[in-house]
């Protein structure tokens, strides 16, 4: 919403990582507007359920279209929007619970289709809005409200998952650096195919990882995040795999495959094989 709406009473906690992601998305959409001349209404932000999904209501300035749907289904909703109108720029915003748990079944199909959208996942390793239950990226053994004796599952490795499923653009970002993140989101939007921008976006209330991510250089604690060196070849899948096996969290473009057509391009390809007929022609074919 463009200005304060007294009816909308949702607030992120002060210091929430999602503020930085919002800023980055705004930067990316404005950059796109300036570069393409297409109005902001040419963007559609499809949001998941949870703290992160509220981003769609909290965007400032001129407004894109939004779809705040149901839990876990942001990807197939975005597929419908994109395939209905391939000229639109479609961005998904969701959290690790929505995207990787209840919505996990939708990642592989979009990767196989190479659906031309950009999904920004805000990973805070916890269900924040429901007050602190464990999520797929919560670490093994961590005590949360829903794991009183420690989490019993191993944590998911989203970057490795995306790479394995065949996502054609994978970037890793940090909400603490919105400018850098904006660049990754914009590169994801420009990529012709399914792009994932996985963002570390800490929850200051239930899982505050800022210190871990940024480290404490004065006390000799190394930051978890590190920038991907410029000599990394993102189109090399083996190099991408090696990169994410390293300690900590690489930030930047991990993998990029520009050789595959996206779903909307593949649909156009089949038009040459199929004969388009009017309703009248189709009816006539049944006459005897």
């Amino acid at each position, binding site marked *: 919403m463009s200005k304060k709406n007294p009816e909308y009473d949702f607030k992120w906690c002060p210091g929430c990582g999602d503020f930085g992601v919002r800023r980055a998305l705004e930067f990316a959409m404005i950059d796109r507007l300036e570069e393409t001349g297409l109005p902001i209404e040419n963007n559609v932000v499809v949001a998941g359920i949870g703290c992160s999904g509220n981003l769609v209501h909290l965007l400032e300035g001129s407004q894109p*279209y939004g779809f705040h749907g149901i839990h876990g289904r942001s990807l*197939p909703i975005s597929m*419908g929007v994109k395939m*209905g109108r391939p000229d639109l720029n479609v961005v998904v915003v969701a959290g690790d619970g929505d995207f990787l748990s209840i919505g996990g079944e939708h990642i592989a199909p979009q990767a196989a289709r190479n659906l031309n959208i950009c999904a920004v996942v805000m990973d805070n390793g916890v269900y924040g809005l429901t007050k602190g239950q464990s999520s797929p990226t919560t670490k093994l053994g961590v005590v949360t409200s829903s794991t009183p004796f420690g989490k019993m599952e191993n944590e998911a490795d989203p970057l490795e998952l995306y790479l394995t499923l065949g996502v054609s653009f994978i970037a890793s970002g940090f909400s603490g650096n919105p400018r850098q993140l904006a660049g990754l989101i914009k590169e994801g939007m420009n990529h012709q195919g399914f792009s994932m921008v996985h963002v570390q976006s800490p929850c200051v209330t239930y899982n505050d990882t800022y210190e871990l991510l940024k480290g404490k250089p004065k006390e000799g604690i190394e930051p978890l995040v590190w920038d991907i060196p410029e000599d990394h070849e993102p189109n090399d899948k083996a190099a991408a795999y090696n990169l994410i096996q390293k300690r900590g969290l690489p930030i930047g473009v991990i993998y990029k495959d520009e050789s595959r057509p996206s779903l909307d391009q593949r649909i156009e390809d089949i038009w040459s094989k199929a004969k388009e007929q009017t309703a009248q022609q189709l*009816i006539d074919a049944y006459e*005897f």
Partner: protein
Amino acid sequence: MQMRDFVVRFAGEGGQGVVTSAEGLAQASTQVGYHALTYATFPSQIMGGPTWTQARISDQPILSAGDDVDVLVAFNREAYETHASEVREGGVIIYNSDDKEFENFSPTDGSKSFGLPIDELARSTGNNRSANMVVMGALAHLVNMPQEYLDDFVDSRFSRGRANDDEIIASNKQAMTLGRNHTSESGLSLGDLAPPKKPENKQLMIKGNDALCLGAVAAGLNFYIGYPISPATTILIWMERNLVGPGKFAYQVSSEIESITGLLGGGFAGRKAMTATAGPGFSLMSEGLGLAWMSEIPLVVVDVQRGGPATGLPTKTEQSDLFSCMYPAHGDVRLPVIAVGTVEEAFQGAIWALNWAERYQGPVILMTEMAIAERVQNITKPDLADFKIENRKVYEGTNGYHRYEGFELSPMPIPGNPGAYVANGSEHDEMGDTTHLPERHIQMTERRFSKLNLLKDGFFESENTESRIAVMSWGGSKGPSQEAYAQLRDQGLDISWYYTMFLNPLPPKLLEELQSKDLVIVPELNYQGQFSSILRSEGVKAKSITQYTGLPFKVRHLVQHISEMAQASEKATVR
């Protein structure tokens, strides 16, 4: 004896030509001016399995698949034993005496059974593929159908512009003659079928699901997503093949959850969106349908009913999804429902469903059922000029628009254009931002329900409306009910007939008339009497005749139960 119609049931193993024989007979008959309807059941397996298809041929329009079997064509022993008892007194059973299962076979009912060496006769023509024509010739003899009708059919069917056309035509005609002569020697006969009265209008020979697809495309459908499920799969296949080209999209996704949420995206983006599914898939769409109602997105979901619940009876017919279709989601939701009762209505219903969705900006459920989906029938060719196609009211102003303002429908902005808003599954304010204020929930709830008032233009059938007792069926039970009604009227029973495919909202005048009756009898294929329950909640004194066998009603059962109920006013169940 002159016959007005006759019913042939072909039964055997999947892959023995059961369906093609029935459809071939139906095609041959319609070609010369008869009316034809086929009714099929399928085994739930790819290869083999017992299956049967029934064709009813008549000199007048056909309302149901027919109660009694005049001729059974049994391709194997199991088919013979399963279906022989369904053949009426004076009927005929033809069995394929070349099938090794019939070696040393002595029929239990020798007087009406007779072995036809179908394979041998076909082989003797030099064309092994003429077996269907041997059977056709046998049937032609039984009803004394003139040879020239069949010759015409063979000429038109096999004139394909190939070098060996003449040869194929000759062998097929010979096969027919052999079948006819062989049957004639048996001495069996059913009578003389009345000569055909060629329908005045152009006709289509079409399956229920195909008619539904044509209607949808005629209404401007340009966005289809589906997932394979019997008996809705043929709609997906049809769309994938025919809904192609710029601005059109037909696609198979990974689940019914993807279908409904994908449709939501397409409808939001301005497309005319539809999917088709059956019970289990419909259940998975529940939450998405609530979202469509909440965020006011036009779309159509076709429910091709089969037996339920859970996996239920995937290849049998039932009308047990009405509660689910009207109330598919949690919260205050009651969706518009159109239920088609014939192949013609499948075409019309699809147009109405898409028009309604566009008009009130929300989800519409189009119900059909296995018995209509798979029925092949001749129908009057629809004239597109008879149908008005509607499109949603689109917002065409500047930015700063309040998409959800007020208590009634408002124009819908389309992405790419000014008027950006958030389509929201949470309760929302005028811009689509989440809110919890009581006055907003009141406004939006009333707004959503008020839009149903835009859908009260459905039409209905009525006859002999002065009677205190009425019959009102729905969906595919229309045909048998209509036949039963006609017979009862002939017998002198004073009873009204009502029918509509618009189940929610009901046409107001229809509801008013029903409310004035002492008893409304509702034949329906479910245990609970779902439609009569809904009618009672609207103040109608409705009682059901229920049946839950997986099969359609027989006319004779309805005649019996309607007349009993008219006298005793009791609920009845057909077993």
